[in-house]
């Protein structure tokens, strides 16, 4: 709880999001007669997002990326550790304060918009909830935001069912931005969209970031999208951030064997290269029954004896950290 009271010299250096040693576990029932077990979706994770950054969060499904996003949005409380937004501990902030700092954009614009509300009222709702000043000016603000995200004002009275997938995602973005948050958490913002629409939404997110000075936490399984958008990337595996680095460094020289395998799996549009064999093995481990030592060792091509028994500790690299015994020099 000390993170919130810490004072940082300059405002620009103040992290917008500071997750410190955050864990979140869930009780999972395995059946009527079995004891409920604990699933640790996020396990002692620290992540800092500074103003202006685009931090990409990547990893396979079930690695905890969405749980971490929900923690950062204040939708879940951490089981341990603390999360601060703009220097203030999230548990001490009201829902309203959280919402003015950080807003989400979700994957599926088909299910994240209320089908019975018009576009205008969907985008106006945050203004109404937060009791924004001058209700008479709301419509103008909403229409201005619609144009900002590339929606014609004429769609104000339309319903989501009348819109294409790309238009719906623009509505979701307009709704997220109407109260001028400082950070947007985009959870797979383009995964449900066609490639030609995906590029339009990515371009829009870049424009908005530049024009409105936004900061993004971008969750995606599409590594080409993350490489294109992010300034820094964190790789998650079974609830841990196992590598974090500047985008350029991470994609040029990935350190963790898991990051290497993940990048090798990306099918870039280069004919003749064939489909790579990632040597990862078929099974993603059961998160309820985590492997001993380094959680990645059963799938790791470079696993050593020590990896089976001893969990690695984070090692600092030029632009981030890596959590792997290969890079840990004993005694340092």
């Amino acid at each position, binding site marked *: 709880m000390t993170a919130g009271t810490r004072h940082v010299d300059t405002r620009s250096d103040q992290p917008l999001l500071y997750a410190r040693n955050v864990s979140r576990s869930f009780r999972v029932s395995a059946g009527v007669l079995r004891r409920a077990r604990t699933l640790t979706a996020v396990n002692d994770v620290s992540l800092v997002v500074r103003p202006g950054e685009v931090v990409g969060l990547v990893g*396979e*499904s079930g690695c905890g990326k969405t749980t971490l996003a929900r923690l950062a949005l204040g939708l879940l409380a951490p089981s341990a550790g603390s999360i601060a937004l703009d220097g203030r501990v999230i548990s001490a902030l009201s829902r309203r304060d959280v919402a003015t700092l950080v807003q989400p954009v979700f994957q599926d614009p088909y299910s994240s918009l209320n089908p019975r509300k018009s576009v205008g009222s969907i985008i106006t709702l945050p203004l109404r909830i937060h009791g924004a000043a001058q209700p008479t000016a709301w419509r103008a603000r909403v229409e201005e935001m619609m144009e900002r995200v590339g929606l014609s004002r004429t769609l104000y009275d339309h319903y989501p069912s009348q819109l*294409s*997938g790309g238009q719906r995602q623009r509505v979701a973005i307009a709704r997220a931005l109407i109260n001028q948050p400082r950070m947007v958490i985009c959870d797979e913002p383009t995964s449900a969209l*066609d*490639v*030609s629409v*995906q*590029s*339009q939404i*990515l*371009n829009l997110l*870049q424009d908005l970031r530049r024009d409105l000075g936004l900061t993004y936490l971008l969750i995606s*399984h*599409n*590594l*080409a*999208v993350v*490489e*294109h*958008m992010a300034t820094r990337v964190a790789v998650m595996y079974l609830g841990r951030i196992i590598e974090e680095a500047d*985008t*350029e460094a991470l*994609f040029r020289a990935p350190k963790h064997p898991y990051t290497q*395998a*993940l990048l*090798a*799996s*990306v*099918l*870039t*549009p*280069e*004919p*003749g*290269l*064939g*489909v*790579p*064999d*990632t040597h*990862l093995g*078929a*099974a*993603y481990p059961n998160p309820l029954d985590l492997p001993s030592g380094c959680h990645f060792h059963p799938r790791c091509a470079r696993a050593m004896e020590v990896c089976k028994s001893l969990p690695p500790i984070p090692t600092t690299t030029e632009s981030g950290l890596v959590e792997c015994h290969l890079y840990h020099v004993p005694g340092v």
Partner: protein
Amino acid sequence: MSARVLTVQELNVALPVPAGRLHAVQGVSFHVDRGETLCVVGESGCGKSLTALAIMDLLPANAERRAARLELEGENLLRLGERAMSDIRGNRMAMIFQEPMTSLNPAYSIGDQLQEALRRHKAVSRSEARTRAVELLERVGITAAARRLKQYPHQLSGGLRQRVMIAMALMCQPALILADEPTTALDVTIQAQILHLIARLQREFNMGLVLITHDLGVVARIATRVVVMYAGEVVETGSASQLFSGPRHPYTRGLIACIPAPGRTRRGAPLGTIPGLVPSLVGHIEGCHFTRRCPHATDACRTGAVPLDTVVDGHHVRCLRHRELATGAAPPPPVAVA
């Protein structure tokens, strides 16, 4: 004996909708040989999935299918009744769907479903079917296969379920496999593994493979030949290298420019876009279907049907202006990777 597995000529699919008739597939022609992977690529609504369903004769009951030719290993499928088709489906041609959870029966064990796939078509004993099921589960990389037979679909991960679907498709050693977005629901790591597996098995069994996808990365890595579909039509077809190193159709070019690709696109710089929307396929479209979104459209493009033109042998494109666009007489959109 010809190696031709599938011949599709002038395939049309129409669906009655409240507003009229929706011409979802219009005059689609292609062929697949043994050992060949044909990728059908396009965005939602372009007709790629309906093309596969039309080949399998699995279209919705109210859909209307017409074709000049539809042949599996030389046999005309157009005149076969439902009974004869169901003897062919799963036997000589099999389909792998996107979401294995909805195509596996949750009430039956993996073993029951695999064995039924074989015993439906071949006169084999229960134990022979079981042996084959175990063998194929091992071939698709599932460990402890004999024990897995007793498991139910919900007990398996998405990647494992898709492996089971692939094993099931292979039970009768089909000549042709139709795979509709087989890896779209999977993680990148699992996607690479499943595609690696499909490509290997296709070579080992010398099958024809039609792979339907929206992912150009998948296409580039796995296709022998590519069919690009837009608004119900084939707009360009050629080998993977022809299409990626020298795309001719403005839609193909636009599609390639849309995807972030390290080395070709600069990080953070704007990506290519294809403005506008796909035209409604209800009723008749005059001229080229891409006109309304095409930066190079002229009046000639808006009148009369545009035929497929041959660029070089095996590379065809449905565009009136592709030659002048390729020579730079008109400013081309950004071109693909080298």
